[in-house]
């Protein structure tokens, strides 16, 4: 069947992240078929090649290697995820060129930043940072991405402001910016229109609703006749009927002794105070349904009359011989039996809000370091080519670098030898 191989992508369509630029179908097939092979050595080889190219590149456009590497990663790992290393890669790429001003408005570099921001928890912070650093401020794509983020968060006003900023900075290409701005305006107005329609339909539904089982005021003096219209003022009060709202009505307890347990209510009160309920039995681990063994009944005696006429009562059992079942979720939290002294029981404690390291923070730190290094205040100095080892998405070791250099030299030498030979051939 000719189309047999083509269904691969359809079978794993849920695991393919859609890309803005679309995917090359051949790369997709390759990626999906290699996944099934297990250790994807071909992919690793390609990645290694990119990594070494990053380090060995000595042309005048180092960004181009990164660009190819990132695009390759996107196409090769359709499901994204950790093993794709995309986030690390983007972060490295972004930091690598953060000092090189001539790249700051390179569309490719701005594209890295936008992708990086989309992978971050707080994209808006990144966009603000970019603006402050002057990265991408003349690129239309920067403003478009920023505005889209605002729009996603429902802030149409700010989304519009971002475009205004872009126009002010004369971002290029102007047509593209204009077109996206128009599209935004169209979306906003359509949204507003839809909302208006929704509002008007809401008002219609606000007509009084008949409450089921509500007590009605009767009409007629001699004979009570239920009114025809059973909404609004015709209702006596909601005490007897089913409550359509979930709000607990505790004032109605007067005519019924039954207080209905409302778990939402108790949760509000917080678990701080243990509720004293006479029937609550401290739960034990054995308190499970059906676990108590059946006992003989033949030992249990009916009270009998003696010949003196008194009744001999069987001594009442101090405790029930079985454990009444108590549902686990019903345990009052403070009454949990604990053998360990509660003062010492600090094995697990609530996690404190830790200082989470965001990518942006790392970036700023690095910049700080860089500045310090320039000022000559650097505390540490590595006496090996640290940047080279760590520059890619994965770490290299010295030997790998040395091998790369060796192979490069070999190739060069063989080429030189080849040309020399040709030349010598030509002479004769």
């Amino acid at each position, binding site marked *: 069947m000719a*189309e047999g191989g*083509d269904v691969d*992508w359809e079978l794993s369509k849920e695991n393919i992240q859609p890309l*803005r*630029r*679309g995917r090359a179908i051949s790369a997709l097939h390759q990626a999906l078929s290699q996944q099934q092979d297990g250790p994807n050595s071909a992919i690793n080889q390609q990645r290694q090649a990119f990594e070494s190219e990053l380090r060995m590149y000595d042309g005048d456009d180092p960004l181009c290697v990164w660009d190819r590497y990132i695009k390759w990663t*996107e*196409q090769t790992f*359709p499901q994204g995820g950790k093993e794709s290393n995309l986030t690390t890669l983007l972060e490295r790429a972004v930091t690598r060129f953060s000092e090189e001003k001539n790249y700051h408005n390179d569309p490719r570099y701005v594209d890295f930043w936008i992708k990086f921001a989309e992978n971050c928890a707080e994209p808006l912070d990144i966009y603000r940072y970019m603006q402050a650093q002057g990265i991408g401020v003349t690129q239309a794509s920067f403003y478009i991405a920023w505005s889209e983020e605002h729009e996603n968060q429902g802030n149409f006003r700010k989304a519009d402001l971002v475009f205004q900023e872009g126009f002010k900075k004369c971002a290029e290409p102007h047509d593209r910016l204009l077109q996206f701005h128009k*599209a935004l305006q169209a979306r906003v107005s359509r949204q507003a229109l839809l909302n208006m329609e929704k509002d008007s339909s809401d008002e219609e539904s606000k007509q009084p609703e008949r409450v089921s089982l509500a007590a009605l005021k009767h009409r007629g003096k001699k004979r009570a006749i239920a009114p025809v219209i059973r909404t609004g003022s015709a209702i006596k009060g909601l005490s007897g009927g089913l409550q359509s709202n979930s709000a607990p009505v505790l004032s109605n307890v007067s005519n019924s002794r039954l207080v209905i347990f409302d778990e939402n209510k108790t949760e509000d009160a917080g678990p701080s105070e243990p509720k004293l309920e006479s029937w609550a039995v401290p739960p034990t681990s054995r308190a499970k349904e059906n676990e108590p063994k059946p006992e003989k009944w033949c030992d249990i005696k009916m009270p009998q009359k003696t010949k003196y006429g008194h009744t001999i009562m069987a001594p009442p059992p101090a405790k029930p011989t079985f454990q009444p079942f108590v549902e686990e979720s019903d345990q009052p939290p403070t009454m949990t039996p604990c053998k360990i002294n509660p003062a010492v029981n600090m094995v697990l404690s609530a996690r404190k809000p830790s200082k989470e390291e965001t990518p942006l923070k790392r970036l700023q730190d690095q910049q700080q370091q860089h500045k310090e290094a320039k000022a000559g205040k650097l505390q540490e100095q590595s006496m090996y080519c640290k940047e080279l080892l760590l520059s890619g998405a994965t770490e290299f070791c010295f030997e790998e670098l040395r091998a790369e250099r060796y192979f490069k030299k070999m190739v060069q030498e063989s080429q030189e030898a080849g040309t020399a030979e040709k030349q010598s051939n030509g002479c004769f």
Partner: protein
Amino acid sequence: MTSTLKGITLKGSAEMVAEFFSFGINSILYQRGIYPPETFSRVTHYDMSLQLTTDPKLKNYLTNVVTQLKEWLFECTVQKLVLVITCLETNEVLERWQFDIECDKSAKESSAPREKSIKTIQDEIRSVIRQITATVTFLPLLETPCAFDLLVYTDKDLVVPDKWEESGPQIIDQSEEVRLRSFTTSIHKVNSMVAYKKTDSA
């Protein structure tokens, strides 16, 4: 006699294929966002829920096309139906959905119905439409407002009807092509394919 046991005639086949195009085109227009999603309403057909446009103009246009197409299918003179998605401003072709139709012309002579149950055909059609839906996984985002056009390739000697005009093939240069599934009613065979602008990564 149940419907599953019935064979299929040329007329029935033409109708079925035309119906597929009607649903297929609607699906693509909805899926690719050519028309705003709120102008579509959901219907259940082929045991799956599909989106049909409620825009009166578009509806009218599609009915015209499909009726004409049915005629051609019945005459076995149609070779291809192509849905082209173009950028509204630059008129650049961004996507090209091509449905190649192979007609078995011998069905015109013998009116005997072919042995293929409607259920099997509908199953095949369903998987084609499913695949059309699934193509979002690799198709590029259409970032600009787009328009669409329908092209029909017929046999050469056919007279062009009033409402139709001759047009170019509108082929995308540097395109990526993906074959989709095909289905056959045993009289008409439809092969689907989508072409889109190649990514600039390679």
